[in-house]
């Protein structure tokens, strides 16, 4: 995956108006501030690599993942990807409260581009991974928050993608479930899956990633050896 001078610029209206009448009446008086979320970012991620992304809130980490997932079309720059991309998405997107866990699993699988036949093969493994017992066939509205998390991760973990994007700001279940997720990630890595992981848990990224990218105001502040980048990041935090 290669990003060449990727920029994402938002125009934020100071007086947001979203109705038709307001747009017509005030079209000429509209004021914008431009927010640069990513500033000519150039980056190459190798096949099978695990890249960690760190930075303060608002540094552009999530925007970077959105560009890689092709959810957000960059304002300028060129993006090249070889392989299929899947992302661990936020917990409720694509889930419906009236449907059962099983039905929701099929639905989310479909959103992630998994064929129905493939989901048939996987559904038992997904149920086992989620490990929520009989609730798997109960409507989602009866679930606890933890069970929804388990289901969401079980579906995504069962997807074969060449590149997996993970935004860990989401938080993942209890300790036991985290161990299971880590084991599944290790399996994916062994198969040569590329990972891009955004996290605030700097220590864990340092231990597991090949390289770490430190984003600051949409630019690369540092990129390279996990220990060095994390040391610089920690030094800047305390400065």
């Amino acid at each position: 995956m290669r990003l060449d001078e990727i920029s994402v610029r938002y125009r934020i209206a100071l007086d947001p108006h979203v109705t038709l009448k307001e747009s017509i009446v005030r079209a000429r008086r509209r004021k914008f501030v431009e927010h640069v979320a990513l500033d000519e970012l150039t980056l190459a991620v190798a096949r099978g690599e695990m890249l960690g992304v760190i930075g303060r809130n608002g540094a552009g980490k999530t925007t970077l993942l959105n560009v890689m997932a092709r959810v957000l079309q960059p304002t300028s720059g060129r993006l090249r990807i070889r392989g299929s991309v899947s992302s661990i998405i936020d917990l409720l997107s694509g889930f419906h409260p009236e449907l059962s866990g099983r039905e929701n699993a099929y639905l989310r699988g479909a959103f992630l581009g998994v064929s129905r036949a493939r989901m048939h093969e996987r559904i038992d493994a997904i149920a086992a991974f989620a490990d929520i017992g009989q609730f798997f066939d109960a409507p989602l509205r009866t679930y606890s928050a933890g069970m929804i998390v388990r289901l969401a991760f079980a579906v995504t973990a069962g997807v074969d993608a060449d590149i997996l994007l993970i935004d860990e700001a989401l938080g993942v279940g209890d300790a036991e479930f985290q161990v299971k997720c880590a084991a599944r990630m290790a399996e994916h890595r062994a198969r040569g899956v590329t990972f891009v992981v955004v996290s605030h848990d700097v220590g864990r990224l340092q231990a597991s990633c090949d390289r770490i990218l430190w984003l600051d105001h949409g630019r690369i502040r540092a990129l390279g050896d996990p220990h060095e980048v994390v040391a610089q990041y920690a030094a800047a935090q305390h400065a």
Partner: protein
Amino acid sequence: MIEYDSAARPPRALEELRELRAHASLLRALVSRNIKVRYKRSAFGFLWTMVSPTLMLIAVSLAFTRAFAASAPGYPAYVFPGLLLWNFFAQTTTMSGEEMAGSDVWKRVRFPKTALAVSTLLTNVINLTLALVPLIIILAVAHRPLGVALLSLPLTIVLTALFVLGASLILATGALYFADVMPAWAMLLPALMFTAPVVYPASIVPPSLKPWLQLNPMTLYIEAFRAPLYTNTIPDARSFALMLAIALLTLALGWLLFTRSADDIAYRA
């Protein structure tokens, strides 16, 4: 191995079409979700599709059966097909617009966004087709003339569906940019119904006003849909050609408008 290069993208309208074709499972899953969610906890199932037009049918029949006795004999049989098709138009455009403007899934996962409109359309086509069964049974029991003309219904439904998809996409594009498009549409729909001969026969409209009825494209589709059910006749070839032309034009316009603005949506959080 899938390759993607942002510098070598096909035109958006074409790219969307290709992605939609690759996401057949998604369409299927969405249609099955729509149907299940709608009928999950209901004993009546698809019969709910019949409830709103039936209530409307009773109301307008009480009001107009005598008034239109000469121009539309057997008035309930005249009005019901029109109500069904109008409801199909109103519900599909409303549901598509609301779902596409309200959805946040596409800010998280990459998938062809037109899948939401297409799956809503398919769901409502299924509902419409199912609603035809009791309608035809009732018409047969009431000794209405029915025959091979019914075989023209699938073609009429397909042409109507293409037009409705185009209209849905145009509406959804507007709804993405302006929050008041959907409420305005909800207010406009009941009035729009009276610009097509749904509850009144076209023959009572003065000749000087008749061309204006054709300004509502649904007039054409409703008359074609009603002909086999009410008078056991098939619309002429010219009607079908016109329906096809309007459907394709509307669909092309909607598709281009929507796909052109689809990339922009993520920037309008």
